């Protein structure tokens, strides 16, 4: 007779075998270099777009577009609202011939498709641009038939890049692949001034606007969009806000979030009703501003109450900064309100600053169910890339514990004068950790480096990025720059943090990157390695140029005794020309008897249809030196906003700016009608010969004219 134990063992063995078989079951996607599946999206745009992502990377991976034969296994794309997070997704295998990618919403199905590409095909979106895209060439691809689902931890993930502009397009096209894709779950930004524009309500509803210094303030330039808040105790303002928001929600069924971000600056109403919400002891709070949190939040609460009666799922952001930095103790915040705490969290490298921020953070975490962080990377402002990978990773993990579920980061890594990606895995890793902060950042960084430059070169690349982190988190905080920048955000354009660099910093970095370039295998990895080194050299030159210029700026005007070039415009425009993209020369004149000494002057006349004009001249510079540009100017009949300008930019022989050095400019705004002088000193970059492009220009007026005379470039004589 078979014993019970034997039966049990046999059953266990059977189940084990079954489990092994199930675990090994795979779903064939690519076979012999051809796509072996049919992609079947539901009939909606998001599903079709999601299927197109998979289709595109299958195409890139196999190198050709091929379609599976009729009756082939299918990958279906569908949306199942309600059961999954809006941006979450699930992979399931209902039968041997069918895989289903289900999204909780349009973004969810899209992120499912991206996960498929990354997890199974091995695609990586390392940095913006085609060279940053890694697509392994596959002959065969078998996907394990294991159900899998995922959803983001931070539900709003924005590494902001500024508005749409050609210089940022490459980045803006890239981050949706890192799941930083609109529509965002929380609308964030200054918005009250947009909701109550003076042009609309100024005459009909002056009571919407604040009493400041005893008078009703109707917003007007230059304070049209800053330094005023609506009267926050006027019920009519609340009613109108509720109407505006409900109307917008009714028009767009997908819109259920709204920013109640106050207008930037001060300008809180001082009427008797509003004053009741001022603190009894009205002294500056921890961060140095007068506390208006209670006034602001009772106003936001009322709006939230009004809107959520009709739209209970609505979510609003409220700013926790400046006058509303600290949450009022014991305040009952409406559950739909999400405070947005603004701080540059690189400040956390200083325990005191971190403790202060934590005090603020705790005040909000105590009263809000969810919190949003507004952070500042301000990347294109820094000459030295601000790469702090582990610091960010720790911070995001800590954020989760503090109920932070939304992140808005002022990033802006690319701009007109910054087109090279120099931050390595910073944005990539940040996006990955915003999705799930409990991932090991080391694995993400290792994977990024290995994929970018190959396994042998990767350790050197990683070490290169660690040097930057060490500087920003260990060396920089000891310097004066960090002390001077004790404020909401560190100031990227005060470059004196560069004075805190070790003298051999750049040399060590260069050695690492030389090794990276040497060890990176030929092909994409080598291309990327050289691109990274190119970016480093640009930034190194820029930093060194700043350090050199720092001394140039201190040199007294009297030291510049040698004339390099001068022009009093008495012989006409000479070789001054219009920039190549400007055709209209109608506002540039050489005007007799208008000059400083009664001779000719250059006249840039404002015309109603033009916003100013500019002329330029190129100078070839072959020897290193220190220079000073001076020009006299006089404005006549211009509008208050006018600007006269002189700039210098280092270029190649075709006039294309070299990003490795600083662009310098100086603005003159004197309206007295007297002659004034604009001047600045600068030094030559390391790479010579090069070209100095000088521009003289005017802008921001529709009337009047600016005369220029006695343009001169002088240099300090070489010893």
């Amino acid at each position, binding site marked *: 007779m078979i014993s019970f134990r034997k039966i049990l063992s046999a059953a266990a063995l059977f189940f084990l075998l079954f489990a092994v078989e199930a675990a090994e079951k795979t779903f064939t996607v690519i076979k012999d270099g051809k796509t072996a599946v049919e992609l079947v999206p539901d009939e909606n745009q998001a599903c079709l777009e999601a299927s197109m992502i998979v289709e*595109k990377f299958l195409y890139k991976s196999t190198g050709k577009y091929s379609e599976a034969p009729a009756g082939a296994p299918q990958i279906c794309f569908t949306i199942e609202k309600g059961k999954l997070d809006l941006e979450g997704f699930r992979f399931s295998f209902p039968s041997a011939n069918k895989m289903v990618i289900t999204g909780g919403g349009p973004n969810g199905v899209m992120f499912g498709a991206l996960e498929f590409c990354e997890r199974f095909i091995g695609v990586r979106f390392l940095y913006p641009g085609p060279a940053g895209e890694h697509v392994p060439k596959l002959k065969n691809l078998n996907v394990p038939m294991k159900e899998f689902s995922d959803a983001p931890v931070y539900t709003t993930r924005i590494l902001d890049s500024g508005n749409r502009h050609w210089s940022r397009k490459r980045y803006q096209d890239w981050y949706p692949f890192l799941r930083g894709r609109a529509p965002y779950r929380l609308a964030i930004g200054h918005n009250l001034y947009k909701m109550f524009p003076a042009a609309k309500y100024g005459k009909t509803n002056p009571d919407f606007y604040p009493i400041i210094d005893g008078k009703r303030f109707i917003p007007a330039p230059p304070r049209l969009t800053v330094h005023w808040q609506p009267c926050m105790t006027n019920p009519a303002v609340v009613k109108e806000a509720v109407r505006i928001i409900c109307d917008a929600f009714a028009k767009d069924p997908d819109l259920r979030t709204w920013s109640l971000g106050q207008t930037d600056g001060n300008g809180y109403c001082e009427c008797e009703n509003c004053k009741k919400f001022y603190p009894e002891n009205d002294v500056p709070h921890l961060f140095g501003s007068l506390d208006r949190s209670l006034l602001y939040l009772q106003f936001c609460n009322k709006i939230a109450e009004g809107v959520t009666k009709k739209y209970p799922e609505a979510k609003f952001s409220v700013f926790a900064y400046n006058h509303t930095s600290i949450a009022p103790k014991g305040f009952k915040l409406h559950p739909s309100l999400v405070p947005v705490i603004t701080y540059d969290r690189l400040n956390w490298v200083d325990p005191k600053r971190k403790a202060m921020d934590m005090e603020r953070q705790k005040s909000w975490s105590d009263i809000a169910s969810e919190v949003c962080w507004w952070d500042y990377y301000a990347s294109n402002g820094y000459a030295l890339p601000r790469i702090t990978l582990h610091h960010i990773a720790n911070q995001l993990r800590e954020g989760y514990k503090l109920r932070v579920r939304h992140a808005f980061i002022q990033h802006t890594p690319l701009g007109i004068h910054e087109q090279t990606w120099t931050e390595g895995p910073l944005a990539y890793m940040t996006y990955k950790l915003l999705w799930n902060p409990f991932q090991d950042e080391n694995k993400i960084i290792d994977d990024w480096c290995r994929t970018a430059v190959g396994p042998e070169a990767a350790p050197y690349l990683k070490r290169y990025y660690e040097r930057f982190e060490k500087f920003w988190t260990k060396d920089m905080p000891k310097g004066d720059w960090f002390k001077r920048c004790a404020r909401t955000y560190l100031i990227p354009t005060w470059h004196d943090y560069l004075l805190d660099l070790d003298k051999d910093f750049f040399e060590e970095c260069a050695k690492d990157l030389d090794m990276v370039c040497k060890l990176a295998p030929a092909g994409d990895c080598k291309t990327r390695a050289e691109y990274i080194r190119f970016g480093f050299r640009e930034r190194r030159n820029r930093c060194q140029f700043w350090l050199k210029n720092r001394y140039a700026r201190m040199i007294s005007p009297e030291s510049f005794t040698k004339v390099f070039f001068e022009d009093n415009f008495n012989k006409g425009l000479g070789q001054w020309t219009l920039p190549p993209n400007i055709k209209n020369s109608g506002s540039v004149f050489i005007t007799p008897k208008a000059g400083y000494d009664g001779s000719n002057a250059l006249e840039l006349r404002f015309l109603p249809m033009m916003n100013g004009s500019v002329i330029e001249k190129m100078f070839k510079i072959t020897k290193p030196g220190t220079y000073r540009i001076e020009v006299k100017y006089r404005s006549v009949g211009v509008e208050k906003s006018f600007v006269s300008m002189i700039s210098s930019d280092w270029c190649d022989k075709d006039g294309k700016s070299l990003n490795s050095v600083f662009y310098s400019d100086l603005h003159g705004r004197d309206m007295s009608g007297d002659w004034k002088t604009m001047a600045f000193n600068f030094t030559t970059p390391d790479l010579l010969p090069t070209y100095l492009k000088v521009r003289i220009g005017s802008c921001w007026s529709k009337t009047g004219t600016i005369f220029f005379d006695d343009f001169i470039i002088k240099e300090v004589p070489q010893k």
Partner: protein
Amino acid sequence: MNLKKMTAALFIAGAALCSAAEVYDLSRIEDWAKKSPLKVHGNGILRATGRVSLFSAKIYPYDAKKTYTFKGMYRQLPGSDSNIFRIGFLPLDKDKKLIEYYTSHPNIATETVLVKAAAATDNFIVIKDGKKWNKSGLVAYNTKPDRSDLPNKNIIRQVPKTIEQTAEGWKITFARPIGIAIPAGTGIRQHYQGGRFRFAGNGTGGQVLSNMQFKMMDPGMKYFQVIVVSGANGIKPGEQIPVIEMRKPRIEVTE
């Protein structure tokens, strides 16, 4: 069924009929011009390869009071990502003739009158107000300020060469004689120039176009013919030949 129930059923059916949008189906090969390179790829999926302009087989009536929406989904297959595809129509008048862009797109800021009679041999005209005139617009005459003249086929098919203010008025000079005598006091304005097709949507690789509306189109438009253009950029070296795909293409007409 009692009378009450029957009335309710009729009412519901009637309401459903009233609210149902009219649909111009474009999802079959026969809905497109005979020589089109379209092929059926699946249920309601049509594809065409190469640089193509696809015209609908039928001409559809157009009512300016209604809204027309391109439904279904339109996209390019991968491989020609930078190429452009466009979805639109040809606007036709009551005689099913093409309405040229320049007959129906006035620059309303330029509306004025001729202050001096112009002879056919003149290469200039003198108008009352030329402040807003420019050197890129064509010139329409016999215009009416309420724009009831549109589409206006009375066009001097030249752009101004010079625009200058004189004692008599604004003198607009052309490169050649204007070719028509126009009496003083005639309404005159500039019209914008543009192509023959009106596009409701433009897309590139990786993009899906859907729900593209058009309404209040060219004045005088009574009919239209659908056009889909693929590979509009030409085909770049190394790029795959573009393939346009339409999934259940149709136009929905709503009040």
